[in-house]
């Protein structure tokens, strides 16, 4: 088993599949009255969050607690971090406290890579800058596999602000490893340069959502921040949602079996309309539940649990 999960590229197909299978076993646990395994008793998992992200932190916290680990939440706000302590000094502090795993969310791309050089424990990337969010990709892959029965050959459109999206990068890497075919859709200003060469040569790019939808098994809508408007990535929120938002009319262009995903939090009315978000094709709430199972699987396997 790998030691760290810094990027979805750390996972080969066998390892990724093992994590998804393990997540399935963890999900079965959620149906029991006692939702707890003793596996990580006595181990310490630190949630080191330099960005506000209540949903991701809670998901990791629930995952670690269900495995009986001791959980320490270290938030950048109201801690020595706001007094200017460096990441290295924070890492050495956590190291001295005996952290077996550090789950890190950080606004700077690559922060988990730096952290891994300074701690002995496992490092799990819970989102770094505009780089990656590999556990989100795992829970997304798990959700697709549960709903559609397979990943190999699945056609997935990822729509929106790919340039700034860590979710998109991790999903392209992981889903390609598992045999899915990815099409990235968005305005040209929000599709990063050389994306196919950078992530996977099979990745396709389209600027026209309508032409892509009829062939897709999955459409994943990314959160688009309205601040991007000020930076001229697109002219207005209204024009964005007209060209790249998913509404009922567009959803009807999808094949019957196709599902709609969103990593959350959503901008209802911007990239997705409420009718679509709340429809039976939407897996958005399911994704949250699967997040706990996927993160349990990651912590369980990284910290040496047996599958």
């Amino acid at each position, binding site marked *: 088993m790998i030691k760290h999960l810094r990027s979805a590229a750390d996972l080969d197909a066998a390892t990724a599949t093992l994590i998804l299978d393990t997540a399935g076993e963890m999900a079965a646990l959620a149906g029991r009255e006692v939702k707890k395994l003793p596996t990580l008793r006595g181990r310490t998992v630190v949630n080191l969050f330099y960005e506000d992200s209540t949903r991701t932190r809670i998901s990791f916290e629930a995952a670690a607690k269900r495995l009986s680990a001791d959980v320490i939440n270290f938030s950048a706000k109201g801690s020595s971090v706001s007094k200017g302590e460096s990441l290295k000094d924070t890492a050495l502090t956590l190291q001295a406290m005996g952290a077996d795993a550090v789950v890190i969310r950080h606004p*700077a*791309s690559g*922060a988990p890579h730096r952290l891994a050089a300074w701690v002995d424990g496992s490092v799990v990337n819970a989102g770094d800058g505009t780089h990656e969010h590999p556990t989100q990709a795992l829970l997304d892959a798990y959700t697709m596999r549960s709903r559609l029965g397979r990943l190999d050959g699945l056609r997935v459109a990822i729509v929106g602000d790919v340039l700034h999206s860590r979710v998109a990068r991790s999903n392209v890497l992981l889903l390609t490893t598992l045999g899915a075919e990815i099409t990235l859709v968005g305005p040209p200003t929000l599709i990063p340069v050389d994306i196919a060469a950078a992530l996977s040569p099979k990745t396709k790019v389209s600027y026209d959502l309508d032409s892509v939808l009829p062939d897709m098994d999955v459409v994943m809508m990314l959160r688009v921040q309205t601040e991007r408007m000020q930076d001229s990535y697109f002219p207005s929120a209204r024009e964005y949602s007209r060209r790249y938002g998913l509404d009922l009319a567009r959803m009807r262009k999808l094949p019957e079996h196709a599902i709609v995903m969103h990593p959350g939090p959503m901008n209802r009315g911007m990239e997705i309309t409420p009718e679509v978000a709340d429809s039976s094709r939407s897996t958005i709430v399911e994704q949250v539940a699967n997040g706990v199972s996927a993160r349990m699987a990651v912590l369980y396997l990284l910290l040496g649990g047996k599958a």
Partner: protein
Amino acid sequence: MTSYLLRGVSLLGAAPTDVHIVDGRISDRSSDPEIIDAAGLVALPGLVDLHTHLREPGREDAETVETGSRSAALGGYTAVFAMANTSPVADTAGVVEQVWRLGREAGLVDVQPIGAVTVGLAGKQLAELGAMASSAAGVRIFSDDGHCVADPRLMRRALEYVKAFDGIIAQHAEEPRLTEGAQMHEGEVSTRLGLTGWPAVAEEAIIARDVLLAEHVGSRLHVCHVSTAGSVEVLRQAKARGVRVTAEVTPHHLLLTDELAASYDPVYKVNPPLRTASDVQALRDALVEGVIDIVATDHAPHAVEDKECEWAYARPGMVGLETALPVVLSVLGERWDLIAERMSRTPARIAGLTGHGTDLSVGSPANLTLVDPSARRVVDPAELASRSRNTPYAGTTLPGRIVATFLRGEPTVLDGKAVK
């Protein structure tokens, strides 16, 4: 003054000969000289660096004029030009004279201050260029390096104004709006790493504009740290038209590529950023051809805490004085005359610096360095004389060892060690 006899030295790779140094000059004889066994060593005119950051005044924890001078001498340099982005900024006669005096006191290389183009490097108002030019420091090169003189009107005025005292503007070519938040070269690797890209066009657009401005007002322009294949093409065309433009390339842009950022280790973060392998090849070709005139180090020392952090929070820059010649040797091979041209004669000529970059013939000032081309060295950051350790070559084996350096006939380096 001691006389020296360099016994069996090879001048720029020629057959071994004896070179005498008397009263600071090359001589054809000497009486009772100190003999230096120079068998197997190649003599080059002392190297001249048009682009060094010595950090004093302001960041003496990263480098001082003295430590930077020692680093330069150990790298084979006899003159370095100190960039203006100190604290306070070298934008007045007072600051440039202070740096100049500190250099003379250290006495290891000639430290020639570069003056800021604009007050506080703010890009708003011309600094007192004339006062710096007529100060004891005799400033001839002006640069806001670290910042681009982005305002085209201000750049035009600066180019025109310095004609009065044969000055030259050295431009840090970076269109600021195209590089907001930029962290590394924009391309495949930046996309993969999720780091904001620094597009090649941000450099090329400024160079294209500036060669047109220089042509329009008939002034000299020097382009700092050229890093892209596209910039080379812009320069080639401008030179073919007769524009008075010169350009430099750093050793790191001749050797390293953006792939190194994949470690997220900010020792590889530099501005302009490391580019692609095809840019590296274009820069090497341009240097050989002469489209790029010189190698300049952009020696940029940084304190440990400014590099031991997240990539986005780290300061850009690499130390380079002690590794420049070995890197160039590894890139160009033992083409000694070409190396002398690109690292000594031409930079001295661009700067109008007399007494440096001259051939080692009888009567010339004895500013020279002796290199052992057969030696190989594994770069160890702990061994650097610079106060900072941010070299991208840690653990790399590089050819060539600087054995001795002479400044006006006195050794600053002997047996590979600084004499003071």
